[in-house]
């Protein structure tokens, strides 16, 4: 098989495309990383010299400690709540066919299909109206809008693949509904729940629009702070913005590495059985 891959001319094209993509990616990330350590980088291949001062400066200038704390709290709350709310719904959707189940499914699909900015603006208005926006609670609520459906959509196939006769077997052994959930389903769902929560965290860390529209003084997450650092008024060293971007990137990568311990990369976007041989 491998022999044929090498031989085929189409393969060269494909691997060429992949190589170009990776080169571009390396350039994009690399230039940010290099700049974040650079001192005076004008019309040259590399900066004149290197320093780590931009990181310290970014840390204080952009008050990164509270920003990171907020980011962490928002992510944990969003992941926790969407799992609590989403998993039971996913369970019902996975196990039951009832009149209107397709409609309910569509209802949960819509928030993922809509661009965040489309519903973000009216959502922010409503959240401001009820006094949530501008605070952590508003940011969490706004981020739940795509996250709850996301958990439902990722967990549904996961639950579907758990043999329903296992639940029936538990009942036949005398287990009440509560025990079926606690002793049998919960342990089996743990990997799926972990995967879904990590994905929710990844998405929430990266969710710019909704957080941007609802964040207040004490509730900015890292991406929003990053956006402000690039676009808000004032003069600042590009390097410290880049340093902040690198901090963001490293944080995401750590999350990613953790996520990939639980999920296959293709499952980050869809859950389909791998290699049915």
């Amino acid at each position: 098989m491998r022999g044929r891959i090498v031989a085929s001319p189409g393969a060269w094209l494909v691997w060429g495309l992949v190589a170009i993509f990776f080169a571009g990616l390396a350039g994009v990330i690399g230039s940010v990383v290099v700049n974040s350590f650079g001192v005076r980088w004008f019309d040259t291949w590399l900066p004149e010299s290197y320093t780590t001062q931009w990181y310290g400066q970014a840390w204080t200038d952009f008050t990164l400690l509270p920003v990171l704390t907020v980011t962490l709290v928002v992510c944990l709350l969003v992941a926790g709540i969407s799992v609590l709310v989403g998993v039971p719904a996913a369970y019902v959707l996975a196990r039951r066919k009832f009149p209107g189940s397709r409609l309910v499914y569509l209802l949960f699909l819509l928030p993922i299909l809509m661009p965040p900015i489309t519903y973000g603006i009216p959502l922010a208005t409503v959240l401001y109206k009820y006094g949530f926006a501008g605070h952590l609670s508003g940011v969490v609520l706004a981020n739940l809008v795509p996250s709850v459906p996301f958990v439902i959509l990722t967990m549904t196939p996961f639950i579907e693949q758990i043999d329903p006769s296992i639940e029936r077997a538990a009942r036949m052994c005398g287990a009440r509904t509560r025990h079926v959930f606690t002793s049998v389903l919960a342990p089996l769902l743990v990997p799926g729940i972990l995967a879904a929560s990590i994905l929710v965290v990844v998405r929430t860390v990266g969710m710019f629009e909704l957080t941007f529209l609802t964040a207040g003084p004490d509730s900015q997450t890292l991406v929003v702070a990053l956006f402000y650092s690039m676009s808000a008024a004032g003069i600042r060293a590009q390097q410290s913005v880049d340093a902040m971007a690198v901090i963001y990137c490293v944080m995401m990568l750590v999350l990613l590495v953790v996520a990939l311990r639980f999920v296959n990369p293709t499952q980050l976007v869809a859950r389909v059985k791998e290699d049915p041989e």
Partner: protein
Amino acid sequence: MSGLASESVSASTPAVRHRLAERGIDPQLFLLVPATVFVVALFIYPFCYGIAVSLQPAQGGALAAYRAFFTDAYQRDTITTTLAIALPAALFNVFAAVPIAYRMRGRFRGKRLLTTVLVVPITLGTVLTAEGLLNFLGPTGWFNRILLSTHLVDQPVTLTHNYWGVCLSLVITGFPFAFLLVLSYLSGIDPTLERAAATLGAGWAQRFFRITLPLLAPGLATTFCLTFVLAFSVFPSAILVGDPTGGTRVISIAAYEAAYVRYDYAAASATAIVMGAVELVVISIVLGLRSLFYTGSTAGGKG
């Protein structure tokens, strides 16, 4: 005696519960309630609220905000601008993903690493990507330096602060997403189908175009929709790497400006609704095309 008892008992147990259960309705459905409440309260309600706001502009009739949007070329053209960015980007992402995913669908060493690396850009976020593109593709970025020093060009190529910058940023964040999705659809297609085609005398092109591609088409449509949604809502990168007053003044910028620069909430909501509507039109067209294809199981038989 027992016959009598059973008669009376079964007569006195109205089988309403059973009949509902036969149709799939029972108390377990209450588990759906929290999530439904969430989506209704935080998505449907704001959406309707937005529609209501859009119909109550400060002056003019109920449709004044929409009329204003469609009569002002500066606003109206954001639709075409957005489509001109989102459609090609989404199409490129999907169609570039196909040959690559097709190559990579089997098992091979390093596949997991490769796919992992491909996931990285999904996590970069638009802001970092924008910053990186400005650095990398800027007039004196590495990319142009390479082109200049190899004498491929004698003027730096302008790839930022214009259409191309936004497109590239959409490709960087959207391609891996499309790729992983296509890969998972491809691995859902029973590999024995292609083997079967091979034993029937089909060469690789025939196998691909007659077996794999038709079976993949519905998945491609779905992938396109999801990628298109991401591209259509492009916002930060249109500002940061694009040309937000000209070539990349996308509809989300128009909505944002209406809300936060002009404080015209009716106009903002109307713009957002128009945006959602345009998106749904595109998605409906694609899903309509999708229904022309075979969409059942992609297993080769049995079960």
